[in-house]
């Protein structure tokens, strides 16, 4: 799939998968239809953003937040999305909380390790690798945490 970062389009592969999962098995989607849905999705994002922004401005805020998006959905007559979105928001917040606690725990572990490393200077190489691995894990926001 050719994806140009400058594009205001969404990746074909993901769009196709979402459509396929929504429709009954064995239903084909013409290329034109897929491309049309992709464009429609981009327009939806713009419409939702504009609508959400109105709510933010009403609240004298410059940053769009979650409630602005939810209000926009109601305004756009997509009330059916509100409940699943609220659920997704809860799940997202729990996940963020979990990650925060996990990285704080890792920091504690790392500090403990650093203390013992200073005592064991003969194993420098291994220690460097371990530290790098820990840092990488923090940056990548390890998914294992959630399981």
């Amino acid at each position, binding site marked *: 799939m050719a994806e140009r*970062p400058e*594009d*205001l389009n*969404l*990746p074909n592969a*993901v*769009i196709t*998968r*979402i*459509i396929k*999962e*929504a*429709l009954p098995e064995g*239903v*084909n*989607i*013409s290329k034109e*239809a897929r491309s*049309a*849905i992709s*464009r*429609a*999705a981009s*327009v*939806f*994002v*713009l*419409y*939702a*953003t*504009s609508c*959400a*922004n109105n709510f933010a*401005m009403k609240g004298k805020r*410059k*940053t*769009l*937040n*979650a409630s*602005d*998006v*939810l209000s926009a959905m109601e305004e*756009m*007559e*997509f009330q*059916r*999305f509100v409940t*699943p*979105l609220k659920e*997704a*928001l809860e*799940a*997202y*917040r729990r*996940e*963020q909380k979990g*990650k925060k606690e996990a990285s704080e725990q890792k920091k504690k572990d790392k500090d403990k390790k650093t203390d013992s490393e200073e005592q064991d200077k003969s194993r420098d190489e291994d220690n460097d690798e371990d530290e790098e691995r820990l840092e990488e894990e923090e940056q990548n*926001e390890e*998914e294992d945490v*959630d399981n």
Partner: protein
Amino acid sequence: MADGVAGKDKCGEQRLVSLPLSRIRVIMKSSPEVSSINQEALVLTAKATELFVQYLATHSYRHGSGNEKKALTYSDLSNTAEHSETFQFLADILPKKILASKYLKMLKEKRGGEEENDDHDESDDELES
């Protein structure tokens, strides 16, 4: 678990959302009045877009020809944009399509239907004379 398709820049949201958040953000930021977007708003917009794609696809499929259908076509979508109030905002980007030959016929009929042969002849005539 880790899903390679959904963009490596925003890991962790991959289970909730398949669409790449970076791309969603680019589209949102293209809106002139928007200054900044909170991370939660970004995730919700991406999720809403997925719900929208599902809704548009299933609605168009069901309200399509009314028969047992094996395919979702462009005209199903275009019909939805035209007839459903919820999807009216898509009317401009999902216009009805007609065959070029039909359109040219319509033009001819407007002009009083001078020629009933190929349109190529029309333009050739102009060149020759």
